């Protein structure tokens, strides 16, 4: 567990502005809110285990957002504290971490997990403890209705929305005959099912579906299964072997003829797109949840966000240009923290007794305009399904950089509600 009480140091400046030099002379430098009890947020962090590469950046983003929140008055005037607990990217430990954050650290709520099995394993306990559980997972488990009234995903769109909104553009611009390569587990199956449905709805055809076992570390032998009449190769991979996959794809096609390539950036998350062996990606397209390379039309908020998290214009750490972030996903942590702030303030949140009010306040949210709180873009929250909807980006690799070529409309990713959590009891 790492305690981060950013209440004192960074806020000092803000306090001093108003307090004046007299107080400073009197040695009265403690921030005003030192008197108010902090709001404690529990963060379920993949610090070890298979999710650790993401976890590192999720933690960093959470710290950055926390600093901004505290510098701008905390939540309803109270300082905010985040308590990080490692879940080892394991569902059993995940549920125990929920327990620990709530019962031992008395956190007001919990947020932050990414991996679906951890979310699904932990959500029942959060529901039993009646504690808000805000996930940053992009899984379809929340909107799919598997979880409970206390579980929400307000900071990032789900796979179903992402995938469905890609199909029309892919069919219109890249080709009609699609071959999919995806990991042979739940996340990959969501891609397979929802993208296939969307492609067929759009008049295209998925001619081959190549599922790769999650334990695989070498992929070349799957590649000949790609039919030669493929017009678009759709790829999505996760885990430590992603770079291998993309490199081998490049070797496989070499300088020969190849289909259009459309990938989910998950295949290259935390990987430098200019790494040797990836030259062949030039001209191919990617889904991005948030554009890694700073775009010409980037908002001022985006600039502030990059600076706060410590990410340069290429999406790498400012301290190490080779340390590429999980840029397309980690904004969800940032946005979720600001939604927590907005929700708590709207609910008049005082103590853990107001947790239900907080959930109701978030459920009541609808439009989320682009702002420092929503750096990725404006969004619409569906209170019934506890799921947010937003824009998706399609980028093209140009000169070793991901340049945005298309932004989907929010409606492109919408689908009929599968669940109405507001009808469930607390």
């Amino acid at each position, binding site marked *: 567990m790492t305690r981060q009480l950013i209440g004192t140091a960074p806020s000092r400046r803000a306090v001093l502005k108003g307090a004046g030099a007299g107080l400073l002379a009197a040695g009265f430098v403690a921030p005003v809110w030192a008197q108010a009890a902090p709001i404690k947020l529990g963060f379920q962090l993949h610090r*070890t285990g*298979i999710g*650790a*590469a993401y*976890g*590192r950046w999720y933690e960093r983003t959470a710290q950055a957002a926390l600093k901004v929140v505290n510098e701008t008055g905390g939540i309803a005037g109270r300082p905010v504290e985040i308590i990080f607990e490692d879940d080892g990217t394991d569902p059993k430990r995940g549920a125990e971490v929920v327990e620990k954050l709530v019962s031992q650290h008395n956190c007001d709520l919990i947020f932050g997990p990414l991996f679906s099995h951890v979310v699904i394993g932990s959500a029942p306990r959060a529901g039993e403890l009646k504690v808000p559980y805000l996930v940053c997972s992009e899984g379809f488990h929340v909107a799919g209705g598997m979880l409970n009234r206390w579980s929400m995903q307000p900071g990032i769109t789900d796979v179903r929305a992402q995938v469905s909104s890609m199909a029309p553009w892919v069919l219109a611009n890249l080709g009609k005959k699609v071959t999919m390569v995806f990991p*042979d587990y739940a996340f990959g199956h969501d891609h397979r099912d929802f993208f296939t449905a969307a492609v067929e709805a759009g008049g295209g055809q998925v001619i081959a579906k190549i*599922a*790769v*076992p999650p*334990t*695989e*570390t*070498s992929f*070349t*032998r*799957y*590649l*000949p*299964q*790609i039919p*030669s009449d493929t017009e678009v190769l759709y790829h999505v991979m996760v885990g*430590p*072997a*992603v*770079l*291998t996959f993309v*490199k*081998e794809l*490049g*070797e*496989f*096609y*070499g*300088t*020969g003829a190849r289909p259009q390539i459309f990938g989910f950036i998950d295949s290259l998350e*935390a*990987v430098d797109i200019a*790494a*040797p*062996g990836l030259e062949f990606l030039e001209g191919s397209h990617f889904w991005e949840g948030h554009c890694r390379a700073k775009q010409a039309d980037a908002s001022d908020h985006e600039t502030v966000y990059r600076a706060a998290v410590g990410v340069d214009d290429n999406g790498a750490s400012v301290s190490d240009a080779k*340390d590429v972030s999980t840029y397309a996903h980690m904004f969800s942590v940032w946005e979720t923290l600001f939604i927590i702030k907005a929700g708590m303030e709207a609910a008049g949140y005082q103590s853990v007794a107001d947790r239900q009010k907080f959930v109701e306040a978030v459920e009541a949210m609808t439009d989320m305009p682009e702002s420092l709180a929503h750096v990725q873009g404006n969004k619409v929250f569906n209170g019934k399904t506890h799921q947010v909807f937003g824009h998706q980006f399609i980028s093209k690799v140009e000169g070793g950089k991901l340049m945005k070529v298309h932004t989907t409309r929010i409606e492109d990713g919408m689908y009929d509600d599968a669940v109405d959590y507001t009808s469930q009891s607390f």
Partner: protein
Amino acid sequence: MSFGPFLLLAVLEGTVMAAVLALTSVGLSLVFGVMRVVNVAHGEFYMLGAILAWFVTYYLPFPPALAWVAALIIAPLVVAAIAALADTFVLKRLNYAPEATIVATIGLLYMVQQAALTIYGPDARPVAAPFEWRIQLPWFGYSGYKLFVVGAAGVILAAVWLFMTRSTAGLVMRATQIDRDTAQCFGINVDRVYAGTFALGAALAAAAAVLIVPIQQAHYLMGHDPLLLSFIVVIIGGLGSIRGTLVAALVIGLSDGIISMFFSPTLAKIIATLLVALVLVFRPQGLFGARA
């Protein structure tokens, strides 16, 4: 793609896999053969090799080819030293009791993995290949480096073979394998033979990792898969039989690529795992090994 090129690619991939697998498995087999120790931490030595290769190539101010060669020398040496320490301070004190050593090497596995996570971090990091060369066939492209891996693995294996059959140290190792007590009577320092064998086994795994790391990436969880695969190879080949291990590595490497052409790959893995278990049950001497 038509069947011919498809098969060609499967064979190429299978050969690369077989080469790397042979290196890791021979290490495991050697340790089992001489010491009767099942080293569950073997995969972690492989992982350490890859991670050390990353450190070496990252911090040495050499051109990629030279840095990689440096890694190929340094990483196995460092890993061998770590293994020798583990042998001296843990396995030897357990008198190599089979079950206790398995539990202890499981413990080592966790410790090494966690140390790698703490020091190296959770990211998968690439190591530049010593050279970039792509072969373009009419149907597909292929990495020239992968073919080089096959050659390099062959050279290392040949060196091990010569070492075991021609050198005094190799003779001493084989003598200890055949009869530990008699070897001791002839004045062989069995402790040192064991430490050396354990180190050599680990070094082979590390060397395999240095070969593979320009193709795959160094990651702290990468030891799991080679461990299972080399277990499979060593069992099919006959526990402790080096010749059987080599044959099995070739068979497993080649068949893996070809089987996955016909079955769902996950199903293929299930079947393969069950088959290995059944081999161990019904043919404990392995499919290719001499009778125990």
